[in-house]
């Protein structure tokens, strides 16, 4: 478990147990000393004196005086003195208590005496008993007390430590999720009853997450609306362009071509932006299906290879590791397709692109590896190529087509399937992009 929990738990528990042990030890020692200081005789002498006073009272005031005298004795001590009359009746009516003492075989001393009229009475005195076993001082009692203290304090410490450590753990997980881009994460529903500082922290955290999410949604909405609105004028423009061409462009033909090309690029850009937005927001709502990765990749290679110039190697692919995955077929398709198209754009056309499906290092993990034979990516930019609109400088200069969205669309789709994507430069040149996908989606 988490270390804060153990720190709190052990600190509290050990200090409570230590405290209990110290108290127990002190108590024990003191009790022993006290016992030793009070000699047995002093108690016996006290009882003896009480007995004598009771006899005198009997003589002077008869049975009533005896009763008063006995009732005057403090309660604790009274239990040590019983007086039985000639009819075998205890004068205070405590026959049952006396009988129990006798049955238990409690050692008692008896004294016979008479009242003024000569009627006989018997006085039973009980010796002081040592403290009872469980509470008795000595190693056994101490061990028992310590065990009880340890158990109770362990329970208390456990719940206290947990009540502090668990919400912190929840907060930590939530902030990680936020950092990973899941802005819908909230924590306070996990601790609804808390109104202390931790509860307030959770509420503040949620407020922060909600604000971030709202800002992100507003940004997306703006981008989406702008992109969407751009489509209609673009569509009209391209029709108008065709009409212009038909009306006889003549000397401006090449300019019209240029306008056509640029508006087509703009159209692709707008569509890719919309696609990216759609995938990262709505994809979670689409139903998952079982996907045979081998089949998907084979179909995909087929489609992409249609567009490779005849005579060029295109994409080399050999079906391999069998793997069925639960997920969204269209998203995965698009993810790998973007990688392949990107690779084809940058590779040495004579050497093509290699695609493979491999078993991952971890159990239940598959990897889709796309390798090209181009010039690779500067080491410092390997992470950034998955950011939207990021393009390596060289690729900007060459205007190789694309606007830096393909890889981020791929990365989004992979993340949606609980996987990861990574790029590295091959030692002998070219870029290797690896998608790792867990077979069993969490």
């Amino acid at each position, binding site marked *: 478990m988490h270390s804060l929990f153990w720190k709190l738990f052990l600190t509290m528990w050990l200090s409570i147990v230590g405290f209990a042990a110290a108290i127990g030890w002190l108590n024990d020692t003191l009790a022993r000393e006290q016992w030793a200081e009070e000699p047995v005789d002093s108690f016996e002498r006290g009882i003896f004196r009480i007995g004598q006073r009771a006899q005198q009272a009997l003589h002077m005031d008869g049975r009533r005086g005896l009763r008063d005298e006995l009732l005057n004795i403090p309660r604790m001590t009274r239990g040590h003195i019983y007086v039985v009359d000639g009819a075998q009746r205890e004068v205070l009516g405590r026959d049952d208590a006396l009988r129990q003492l006798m049955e238990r075989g409690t050692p008692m001393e008896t004294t016979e005496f008479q009242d003024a009229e000569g009627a006989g009475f018997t006085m039973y005195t009980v010796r002081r008993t040592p403290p009872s076993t469980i509470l008795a001082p000595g190693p056994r009692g101490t061990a028992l007390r310590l065990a009880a203290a340890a158990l109770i304090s362990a329970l208390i410490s456990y719940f206290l430590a947990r009540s502090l450590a668990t919400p912190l753990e929840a907060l930590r997980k939530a902030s990680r999720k936020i950092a990973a881009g899941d802005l819908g994460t909230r924590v306070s529903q996990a601790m609804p009853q808390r109104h202390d500082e931790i509860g307030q922290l959770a509420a503040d955290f949620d407020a922060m997450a909600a604000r971030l999410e709202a800002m992100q949604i507003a940004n997306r909405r703006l981008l989406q609306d702008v992109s969407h609105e751009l*489509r*209609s004028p*673009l*569509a*009209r423009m*391209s*029709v*108008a362009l*065709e*009409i212009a061409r*038909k009306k006889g462009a003549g000397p401006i033909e090449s300019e019209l071509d240029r306008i056509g090309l640029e508006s*087509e690029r703009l*159209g692709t850009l707008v*569509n890719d932006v*919309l*696609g990216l937005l*759609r995938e990262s927001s709505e994809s979670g709502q*689409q139903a998952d299906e079982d996907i045979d990765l081998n*089949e998907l990749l*084979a*179909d995909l*290679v*087929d*489609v*992409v290879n*249609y*567009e490779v110039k005849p005579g060029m190697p295109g994409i080399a692919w050999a079906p391999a590791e069998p793997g069925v995955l639960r997920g969204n077929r*269209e998203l995965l*398709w*698009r993810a790998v*397709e973007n990688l392949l198209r990107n690779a084809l754009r940058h590779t040495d056309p004579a050497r093509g692109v290699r695609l493979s499906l491999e078993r991952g290092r971890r159990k239940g993990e598959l990897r889709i590896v796309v390798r090209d034979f181009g010039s690779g990516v500067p080491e410092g930019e390997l992470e950034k190529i998955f950011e939207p609109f990021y393009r390596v400088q060289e690729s900007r200069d060459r205007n190789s087509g694309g606007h830096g969205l393909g890889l981020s669309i791929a990365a989004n789709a992979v993340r949606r399937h609980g996987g990861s994507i990574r790029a590295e430069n091959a030692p002998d040149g070219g870029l290797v992009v690896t998608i790792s996908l867990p077979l069993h989606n969490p």
Partner: protein
Amino acid sequence: MHNTLLLADDDIELCALLKEYFESEGFDVRLAHDGLEALEELRKPGLDLVVLDVMMPEVNGLDVLKELRRDSRLPVIMLTARGDDMDRILGLELGADDYVPKPCNPRELLARIRAVMRRAHGPAEHGLIQVDDLELNQGNRTLRMAGEAVELTSTEFSILLTLLQHRGEVVSKRDLYMSALGREPVPHDRSVDMHVSNLRRKLGADPAGENRIETIRGIGYQYRVA
């Protein structure tokens, strides 16, 4: 003779431009700007092809298509938002012949219209093709299965025809695109797969209880020889 198109799209300005463009290419063009207008226009005779935008007010394009397909095999080309795979797949499943992602290049739209039309209304070849319990009439492009008429869209008919003409051989997807849609496959294109899956649904198993159309992975499809 001029072919007549119905163009159903809610962008009025775009429709006007497309109308001018298609008219200059020799079509008669009727316009509809929402689903209800489209349904109304579809009831009038004389149409040869419909270009149907999915996103329309009142009744969306998919519902218009569903309504149309109850009793008509009129060729339909859907305009879908690019990247919206659900619309595209649903459209093909509901019996659209082809689709063009928006915003579309008008030349491409024109090419698809011509390709679909050529197959639907082109010079009819004559003759019957009989395979197992199927009877294809190339003259009126109808199919009877065990004597019962089966409604096929024009594109489904073309695909089945091609497969039956090459019975027992694998027909590549590219060939099916060329013969049924008159075009090359494009990125993200699964039109032929959708048409084949519609065909499978409509035809069911063959008399021996086997799948009639087999998928040959990475290549194409094959009509099984009994």
